[in-house]
């Protein structure tokens, strides 16, 4: 094995090793440790591989197999790194989904609170709100009628009473109109809020479902590699090649028709 290969193997071993401190080992009750240098580990791996190969192969064949084995080892190592990366990505996705859910929950709670406040406002007794207004109107009318009366043309308390009744009735009518307009506006607002809450709730459910799915993926199965790197097909030297080719063609044609693909 050349120097570069040795270094690659060394790097590989380093990457799969884990670090720990002496304190941590002491805590685990370890008093003494046996130390094995990385060069010794590499030498042992090399020796094991060569011994194994020596018993099965000779010459060039052995070198070729050794190279192929090394390449496969490095490929597996890279695959392992890819898996680690994918795992981290999924964990990030899960965290992000969790964050989204939390945000939605907060927003939902805020909207529900606002709606409750709005509904409470709507149910306040109107009489208390308008009592002051009535008094002000009455006072103004009184002032006006008083002024007229003082002017001498208009007369009695009865007249004053009637004018007051008339005006309050008019104002009451206007107020009812304004109130119904206000109520319509409030109903629209409530409806909008309810719709938003419904939408938020749905969105929250969807995100929670996605989160559950991501959480269930914690033991991600990345599958098992196929033994084929590329598409195979019938080999020319295969037994009954011609017959099998015809059969493959017949199956393919039937599937083209079935899957409505243009011929």
């Amino acid at each position, binding site marked *: 094995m050349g120097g570069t290969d040795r270094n690659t193997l060394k790097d590989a071993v380093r990457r799969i090793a884990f670090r720990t401190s002496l304190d941590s080992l002491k805590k685990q009750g370890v008093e003494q440790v046996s130390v094995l240098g990385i060069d010794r580990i590499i030498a042992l791996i090399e020796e094991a591989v060569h011994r194994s190969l020596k018993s099965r192969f000779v010459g060039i064949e052995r070198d070729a197999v050794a190279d192929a084995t090394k390449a496969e080892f490095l490929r597996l190592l890279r695959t392992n790194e890819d898996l680690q990366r994918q795992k981290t*990505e999924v964990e990030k*996705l899960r965290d*992000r*989904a969790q964050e989204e859910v939390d945000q939605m929950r907060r927003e939902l709670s805020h909207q529900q609170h606002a709606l409750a406040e709005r509904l409470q406002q709507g149910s306040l007794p109107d009489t208390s709100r308008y009592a002051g207004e009535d008094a002000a109107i009455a006072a103004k009318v009184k002032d006006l009628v008083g002024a007229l009366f003082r002017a001498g043309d208009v007369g009695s308390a009865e007249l004053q009473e009637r004018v007051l009744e008339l005006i309050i009735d008019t104002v009451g009518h206007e107020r009812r109109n304004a109130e119904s307009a206000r109520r319509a506006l409030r109903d629209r607002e409530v409806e909008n809020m309810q719709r938003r809450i419904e939408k938020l709730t749905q969105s929250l459910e969807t995100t929670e479902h*996605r989160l559950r799915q991501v959480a*269930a993926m914690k033991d991600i*199965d*990345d*599958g*098992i*590699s*196929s*033994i*084929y*790197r*590329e*598409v*195979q*097909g*019938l080999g020319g030297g*295969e*037994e*009954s090649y011609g*017959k*099998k080719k*015809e*059969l*493959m*063609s*017949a*199956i*393919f044609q*039937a*599937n*083209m028709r*079935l*899957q409505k*693909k243009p011929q």
Partner: protein
Amino acid sequence: MEAVAPEKDHGVLYIGMDLGTSRTSVSASNGVRETVYSMVGYPKDVVSKKLLKKDVLFGKEALEKRLSLKMYKPLEKGVLKYSGDGSMTEEMKANLKAAQDLIGEAIRLARPRKDELVYCVIGAPAEASMKNKEAIIEAARAHVDSVMLCSEPFSVAYGLDWLEDVLVIDIGAGTTDLCRMHGTMPEDADQVMYEIAGDAVDAELKRLILQSCTGAQVSDLMVKEIKERYSFVGDTSERVVVELPVSGKPTQFDITEQMRKACSVLIDPILEGIYRLISTFDPEFQVRLKNRVLLAGGGSMIRGLDTAIERAMKERLGGGKVIRIEEPIYGGANGALKIAHDMPEEFWEKLK
């Protein structure tokens, strides 16, 4: 949040699938071979969903939790319980979804890598309707890069490299299919199907047990398990003794004769099919065809069935040789895998 689809440049995974009434089996080019009962269960309500922590369960797991699930057996007599026309009932729609989920699960069981092309061949019943086949294709397409269907008995024969003058008997749960191969794709005249198969044996065994074992209580599942363990035809040196509850108390019953009788219901239709396919074959090759009868499918595991068919063939056709395939459960899937492997690249590309 959607993950970016990985580039599929790391290899090609071939999957062969046998979509059966009772079991769905897969064989893949990564060495995975799996089988799952063709049963799908969905939680009945929110409580069961929370308890099971799954939206859908399959096979044995679904069977074990069946009290909390709405169960579906999406295939019946070898085909999907689905018409594909305007008369679709809610039940049919639910069965279609169950079938789609089952196909997805079977492909997941093959453990494909995300960065590999996945090419799948599914052994479908010869009698399946066009709509039925389309539904299978649609279901599989969601999980693979390219998919093809082929006839089930054909895939069994192809897997064993028996392409000429061979008669395949595929005994499933819903149907028994017979197909003769003569070097080309089998046509309608080359295939015969009977609805007397594994399920018919179960029904007959249950009837005989209830008739003869006084007070015994037995469910369909119990009968199926008993059959899978003790089934036989012809002579046997071992008695079939089973324990069944009688008013809550486990009680032993000898059901040797009942088992023999129930399993024997398969022989007449099989013999009838063999006779039909051999007598209408080229007379020059009839003897060769008689001596190349392949017994496949779950039903072929009935002890003594090959000998019993040979004996019946001798009486009716003057002789014959029946060979039981080595792996009845995976025969169809292995054949489909071989077809997938042998299919040229351009064919797969065109069907992508």
